[in-house]
């Protein structure tokens, strides 16, 4: 039963990851008064890229060819280890918060190496920026995760989501509100969304994530885009599961509720996509050289959230 749920959760995230990107794009198009592309377009893009030829720069080394595998592998690991449709199914030692943080960091590191191996100035610029952001987001990220662990009394994401799901909404989410806002700031930075990065830009000077993958093509590009979609999905669903911890499965509930849980999962994806699209349509991108302000706000927010939770914890 438990393994069924683990597998189901994994497959669901992997299968629906491109849909998240499609939903966000659709919502953004809606905000711009456009009809926009089909929400299934990312699937077609990935499939057609998988069948295309690859062109690789002669100035790259074996690292360039290894990067897509490691980046996708870390994303697939995240999909397995972060609770999305069920809780109480993963061993705590596997879903440990710091392990998940480190796996995400490993993915960023290899993406950066891929950008550095192109010998193109754009790739190098994107890498330098991405690495800076990844380094500066760590304090807020780890503190937010530990604060949630402190609140739940458990140090695995699976357990944290389980705690949120089992407690009354008004007892946990308001206490953790500031922490969750800081988590949202971290998620936006980790996934290269506004106000940190513009995922739709075609101007190299404003790119972060896109600049690193400019030199990838064909199947490798598909793998990197898929990995980015998985990471966005996983983190968005995690956020939604903490803010709205409803409709989650547990091994004790039996298999009958699986369709309901799947519908709730898709609903959460849609809400999360709407949230990201709303953020991206209502605020402007920050100048890169003001990023330390954003990161400081995230870290201070995480600290304030921690103190709130601590007060709640000791009372």
């Amino acid at each position: 039963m438990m393994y069924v749920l683990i597998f189901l959760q994994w497959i669901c995230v992997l299968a629906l990851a491109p849909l998240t990107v499609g939903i966000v794009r659709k919502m953004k198009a809606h905000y711009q008064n456009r009809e926009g592309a089909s929400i299934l377009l990312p699937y077609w893009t990935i499939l057609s890229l998988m069948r295309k030829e690859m062109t690789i720069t002669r100035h790259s080394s074996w690292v360039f060819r290894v990067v897509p595998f490691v980046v996708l592998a870390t994303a697939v690991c995240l999909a397995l280890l972060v609770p999305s449709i069920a809780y109480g199914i993963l061993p705590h030692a596997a879903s440990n918060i710091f392990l998940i943080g480190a796996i995400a960091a490993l993915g960023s590191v290899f993406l950066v190496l891929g950008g550095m191996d192109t010998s193109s100035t754009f790739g190098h610029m994107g890498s330098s920026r991405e690495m800076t952001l990844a380094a500066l987001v760590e304090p807020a990220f780890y503190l937010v995760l530990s604060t949630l662990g402190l609140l739940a009394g458990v140090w695995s994401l699976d357990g944290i989501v389980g705690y949120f799901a089992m407690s009354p909404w008004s007892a946990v989410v308001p206490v953790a509100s500031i922490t969750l806002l800081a988590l949202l700031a971290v998620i936006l930075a980790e996934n290269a969304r506004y106000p940190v990065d513009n995922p739709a830009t075609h101007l190299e000077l404003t790119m972060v994530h896109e600049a690193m993958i400019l030199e990838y093509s064909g199947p490798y590009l598909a793998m990197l885009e898929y990995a980015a979609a998985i990471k966005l999905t996983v983190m968005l669903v995690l956020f939604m599961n903490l803010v709205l911890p409803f409709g989650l499965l547990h091994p004790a509930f039996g298999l009958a509720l699986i369709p309901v849980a799947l519908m709730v999962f898709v609903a959460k994806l849609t809400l999360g996509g709407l949230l990201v699209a709303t953020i991206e349509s209502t605020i402007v991108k920050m100048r890169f050289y003001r990023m330390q302000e954003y990161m400081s706000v995230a870290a201070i927010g995480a600290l304030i959230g921690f103190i709130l939770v601590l007060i709640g914890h000791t009372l």
Partner: protein
Amino acid sequence: MLSLLSKIIKTGRITEPAPSLEDAAFVEAGRNLKATIGRLYGGRSLRIRHIDAGSNNGEEYEMTALGNAYYDVERFGLSFVASPRHADILTVSGPVTRNMEHALKVAYEMTPEPRIVVAVGDGACTGGIWKGSYAVVGSVADVIPVDWQIPGDPPAPADIIRGLLKAIEQARA
């Protein structure tokens, strides 16, 4: 402050409703293109990299218009990308100037197969009014293989869409 807010709420939106400006011919062409992409081109997603090889920017205005709320070419499954390595179609505008000849060749070389090259505008098709100038190499077809040519100075967005349709049909045939 409160009175201002309440006034805003009470007044509501007083601008006229936007008139429906659906360009029937354009939408028709777009739907055709979408169907053709789905039928012929394996995937239903086409990614375009535009290259300005020396145009007077007229074509670029029209290409940019493709992405705006009115034409919204994304709904047909087309999208613009930042690198030729990501692209399925190269659209080239303007007569190829000597300065851009190398850039065009390189961009063509690194676009992965299967690739389609579309020349957009009179300059790209024939060299236009710059034909024979010392600063110009010639039309796009003189530099790289071209699959389809869209004439016009500049061509209207609907023409571009129809041209892309023809280009795909021709390239797959």
